[in-house]
């Protein structure tokens, strides 16, 4: 079974600085998808970014980018120019390519604080 690990339970960053959240996963599959979700105190889970494993190019979405290292099974999220609104729980998630939209495996989460 696939597992997702986030080794940093809590992180903090100064406003306008850059922070990187770590995620590693374990799988024997060659094709899969990886996601980062954000959950602010309002508890709404918001999709931040998505990466297809077969794409070598790292996904980017405005201030959010990933460093996808397939051989190392690593999928870190970089937040540039951090803003107060970035404070939230961040969850890394994995999905097999053959389970369309189903069977997401979520990591334990990293709580990010943004300091003014």
């Amino acid at each position, binding site marked *: 079974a696939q597992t997702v690990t986030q080794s940093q339970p809590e992180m903090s960053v100064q406003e306008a600085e850059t922070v990187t959240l770590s995620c590693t996963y374990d799988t024997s599959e060659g094709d899969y*998808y990886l*996601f980062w*979700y954000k959950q602010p105190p*309002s*508890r*709404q*889970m*918001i*999709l931040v970014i*998505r990466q297809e494993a077969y794409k070598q190019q790292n996904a980017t979405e405005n201030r959010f980018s990933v460093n996808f290292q397939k051989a190392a099974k690593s999928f870190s999220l970089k937040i540039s120019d951090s803003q107060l609104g970035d404070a939230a729980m961040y*969850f890394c998630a994995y*999905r097999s390519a053959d389970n*369309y*939209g*189903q*069977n*997401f495996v*979520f*990591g*334990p*989460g990293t709580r990010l604080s943004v300091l003014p």
Partner: protein
Amino acid sequence: SAVISQKPSRDICQRGTSLTIQCQVDSQVTMMFWYRQQPGQSLTLIATANQGSEATYESGFVIDKFPISRPNLTFSTLTVSNMSPEDSSIYLCSVGERGTQYFGPGTRLTVL
């Protein structure tokens, strides 16, 4: 992406009672999911609810405790039955769309 609403947004219930949570989507979707998020924890999938078939429950979750309805492609309900304080959690519904899951705002349940 689909817009998802949940009712109620929060509730405080007495042990032994039941609560039904509604999930409404603004477009037709095939796959809907129900998750539980215990305080300070990650998400745990309760069941997958596809229209026209019985819900598929994950290990540790049973239909008698968490009955689910999926009467059409835009709506689903999750009932938390015979509640105990251990059921205090956030319950989230999500939909599968283009290989990604999108979530509702969640229902915060407190059981006294």
